[in-house]
């Protein structure tokens, strides 16, 4: 059985790519292996760890749970696309100031998910940060405490700047 390759166009961090992929190729595989966006990390095989989280047409997505052919025409943003010219945004700055990363493997996906959460929620409680904001991302190193701190700090900074 021949599974015909499909032509797909993806825009990633503003750069357009035209590629030809087997239907079974996962978006995470295309981004990482084919297009070199290795900031996307693969931590599991059951769509739970969230390390592969990107934004696709303004919605966060676990890129391991999407076929590339489904994403034809999508605009994808990775953590590399969130900081311009290497300048860290508020959430990323909070992450380093609060020591919210250790090995860093979960961080790219974590930042993408939290970024969207902060857009939608002002002044979340620590409990909500734990149960809602961090529901889709695992970390094995930090024990989460400093990540919660970073989200709180970033939320305050973002609220101030939007007033």
């Amino acid at each position, binding site marked *: 059985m021949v599974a015909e390759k499909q032509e797909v166009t993806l825009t990633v961090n503003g750069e357009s790519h035209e590629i030809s992929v087997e239907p079974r190729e996962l978006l995470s595989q295309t981004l*990482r292996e084919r297009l*070199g*966006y*290795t*900031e996307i*990390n*693969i*931590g*599991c*095989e*059951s*769509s*739970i*760890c969230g*390390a592969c989280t990107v934004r696709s047409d303004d919605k966060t997505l676990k890129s391991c749970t999407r076929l590339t052919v489904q994403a034809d025409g999508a605009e994808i943003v*990775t*953590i*590399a*696309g969130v*900081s311009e010219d*290497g300048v*860290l945004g508020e959430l*990323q700055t909070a*992450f*380093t*100031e609060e*020591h919210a*990363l*250790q*090995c*860093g*493997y*979960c*961080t*790219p996906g974590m*930042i993408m998910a939290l970024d969207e959460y902060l857009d939608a929620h002002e002044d979340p409680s*620590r409990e909500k*940060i*734990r*149960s809602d904001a*961090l*529901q889709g991302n*695992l*970390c*094995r*190193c*930090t*024990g*989460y*405490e*400093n*990540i*919660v701190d970073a989200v709180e700090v970033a939320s305050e900074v973002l609220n101030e700047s939007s007033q």
Partner: protein
Amino acid sequence: MNSPDLDGVIGESVARTEDHRVLTGNSTGTADISVANALHVQFLRSEKAHARFDIDASTARAHSDVVAVYTAKDIEESGTPTPEPFSLYAAPMKGVPHPDSAYLQQSIAAEKVRYQGEIIGVVVGTSQRAARDALNDIEVSYDELEPVMSTTDALADEAPVLHEGVSDNVVFEGASGDKAETAANFDAAAYTATLKKDPQRVSPCPLEPRSAIATYDSSMDTLEFVATTQIPHGYRRLLSQMLNHPEHKTEVTVPDMGGGFGARQHPYPADVLVGWCARDLSATVRWRATRTENQLVENDGRGYEGTWEIALSNDGDILALRSNIRYDLGAWVARGACGLAQSGNSVMTGQYDVPAAYSHVTGVVTNKSRVDAYRGVAGTEMIMMLERLVTRVAKKAGLDPATVRRRNFVEPDQFPYENATGAVYDSGEYERNFQVGLDAVEYEAVQARKETLRNNGRYLGVGICSYVEGAALGPCGELDVPTWGYGGVQVHPTGEVTVYSGGANHGQGHETSLAQVTATELGVPFDDISVVENSTKEVTDGVGTFASRTAALCGSAITESCRKVLEKGRQIAAYEWDVAEDAVSFDHGTFHCDTIEQSRTFQEIAAQAHMGAALPAELEPGLEEQTYFDPETRTWSFGTHIAVVELDPDTGAIEFHDYVATEDCGVQINPDIIKGQIVGGIAQGIGQTLYEDVEYSDDGTLLSDALRDETLGSSGGYVLPKAEHVPEITIKSTETPSPHTPHGAKGMGESGAIAAPGAIINAITDALEPFDTEPMTPPITPEMVWRAMSQGGAE
């Protein structure tokens, strides 16, 4: 040597140098590295736990995108030397011989498999997907044997024999301490308590799955690895030995790595075979594990079961401790696994001055994957059971558990203190640190609240766990492998500094903390310092990062090297000024003379050293020093964790009301990094206590191979704690310097994993006091708690 107005020195919570590249998406792990024309390996792994097998790879070989398929026979018959079997780094215990060589694993199974996941075939293809597809076409027939899935089964009469030549499935048997004296003290005791522990394995589960890339260049006869290891130089040495390739033509580099926790030290069978394939094919060959594969074969942690006992005098003095332990090693003995028994026994008396102790450990094989180091190692189980027993026997004697602890702590004037199993503790102020914890949790108040709430049908529990962490192994000679720390300091003519460390940073922040040490010693700005680790190409030698060693050992080596650098600088200055060397001092980045008005900056001296002119005859040009730091003893961090929980009688849910951790790891280089290590360890300890359990079926199939599993009737997957599972944690520190490291820093990093289980189990047990229940062993689920409360009969 304090430089309070310099930045980035010891004691500051400097934001980490490592962070920027992660946060901008520029972190690079092994699987991220692109190598043109690399071939991809996929392993055919045994589906059965215990079987003889036949294998036919001819159909797989015929795939157009498959370059080679190897079975054990192919490897044996090829021109490339067959890999040597694995070896062990230490005897199980002092005086216990090395296990039978039948227990040393080969990288690929030839005729018999002994655990699900054992490698039986290797496919090399032009892409990972191609190699994966070809696995489907390798034909295997299994002739199943009865699997042994517990130590009880392994030791039973007529048990199936896993390894020919060792009919009793026993790998080793040994003990620490004085059996007779311990028995006598138990006889003399007013109170004793006994607790059993059921077997439990946990999976270290770093978030990045294992990965390796090997390149063999036949024109240069060089073999280079990029891989997920915590010990690049040790990994190189072992691969060189096992692949029969000269060490000086073998290199290992470790890029950014997504966690290790002890499971990523020595090469695994997969790593050896990747290297072997590279040799055979004169190519670059690469492999990365899937999560499923990783769970199947990456070493599990813990594996202890047995009986622990404590003896107490009428006045509340701990008279003796005793344990009889069975240790499930898995089907093969992993390189470090046996030595962990000694390591565990060495901490069995915890912070207490106990006159007699005896611990007997029997290491046994089963048809499961291997057990080896995981954060806290056997010390976790020993401390967990010790602390449960201290509380239990205290209550039997009608004494407050905190009071009994205080009464038995080793006193400050007893250090260096040799415990009843021969470990020598360096320094400590146990009672002072303990009091900090009691104050932070408001011990008296919370006990009072507990009593009040009990009258209202609410069940609070307070649990204490005091621990020691024997960090930074040493001195040299204790094991069959080196235990020193390497630190080299190279001063550029500009005065900037490159530091070479034999450690292997993978989240611990060495690029930052070791730069802080250097900034403190040399008075050089933090930003002028680079730290290099993780490479046999760039760093002369090293022992790696595990057992909480880097700050104490590499940090000390770097400190000594810095001091040698300053010594040379003083000699250069003294020569120039024509004064005695002891008239030259150095501080705030400047050499100055105490007798005449002269000074030179560090940068000026560095430039002069580099030029090589105007130096005393006995000095060579350059400003670069290295040190192999051989510790006098291991360092001993300590502290106490106190957990306050409430149990819901209707659901058994365990809710944290408070969690206080006190830590003393001597002088703290970077307090934020230290807190991060503690909290991360606690999360893993919570995992072990309440959630995590490696689960095998009776036929030897690993059931917990996914982090999320929707199979009907399954347990749901191997639980990695989420943010909602970890409470808010309060951390307090005291600093009792180590007398054996130049800055007084001790190793730390495992304390959270070591102490959390004991604290939480003690808290749960305390909350269940009104109910007549049997003691539990981890993982403790809400259902277990509910059963205890609904069937135990509350008052």
